[in-house]
């Protein structure tokens, strides 16, 4: 299973765009890239998933370069409620996913 590397923490201010980059150098051909958000005392919540290029939904965008060895989660105009831990995961569709350390995002007023 591919290992992921993310910054441990990031700070931002309300209204800014936040980009969190994840490195996954040994991603396999069949792997998808998935991002989750976790608030304290809650289970992780799915944010977005992609395989290549760009994916956008109502909460975030995911940018994946051609070599797929990294990916960037983009959160537009963050608010205080976006303060959470964000996890990047890769896997081959067999369902088993290994969580890395995650990025603790702190949004300040």
């Amino acid at each position, binding site marked *: 299973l591919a290992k992921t590397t993310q910054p441990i923490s990031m700070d931002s201010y309300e209204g800014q765009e936040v980009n969190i980059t994840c490195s996954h150098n040994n991603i396999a051909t069949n792997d998808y890239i998935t991002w989750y958000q976790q608030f304290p005392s809650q*289970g992780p919540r799915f944010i977005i*998933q992609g395989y290549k290029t760009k994916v956008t939904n109502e909460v975030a965008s995911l940018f994946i370069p051609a070599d797929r060895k990294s990916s960037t989660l983009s959160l537009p105009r963050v608010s205080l409620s976006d303060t959470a831990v964000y996890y990047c995961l890769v896997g081959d569709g067999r369902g*088993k996913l290994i*969580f*890395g350390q995650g990025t603790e995002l702190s949004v300040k007023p």
Partner: protein
Amino acid sequence: SAVISQKPSRDICQRGTSLTIQCQVDSQVTMMFWYRQQPGQSLTLIATANQGSEATYESGFVIDKFPISRPNLTFSTLTVSNLSPEDSSIYLCSVSTATNEKLFFGSGTQLSVL
């Protein structure tokens, strides 16, 4: 999507006892997993719950300590046996409804061992 009900939401247990956690899903799912999250840490996969057969455990986790049942496609239990204070963690059930690895999580069980 899948709605997961996990019980109990929290419990305080004495050393040496056991706690059984239930995970109920509102629809049939292909994959069910149990994770542990120690205070301030990321999630660690304990095992994959297999329907009708023994669970598949990750390195460092054994069946005697974490017996798992999955009698059907919507229900699973995790028992944490012979509790010690080091078992104090949040235990999370998760499910996958398809092969594209979108996981859904229960709200977790906060276990404190005295």
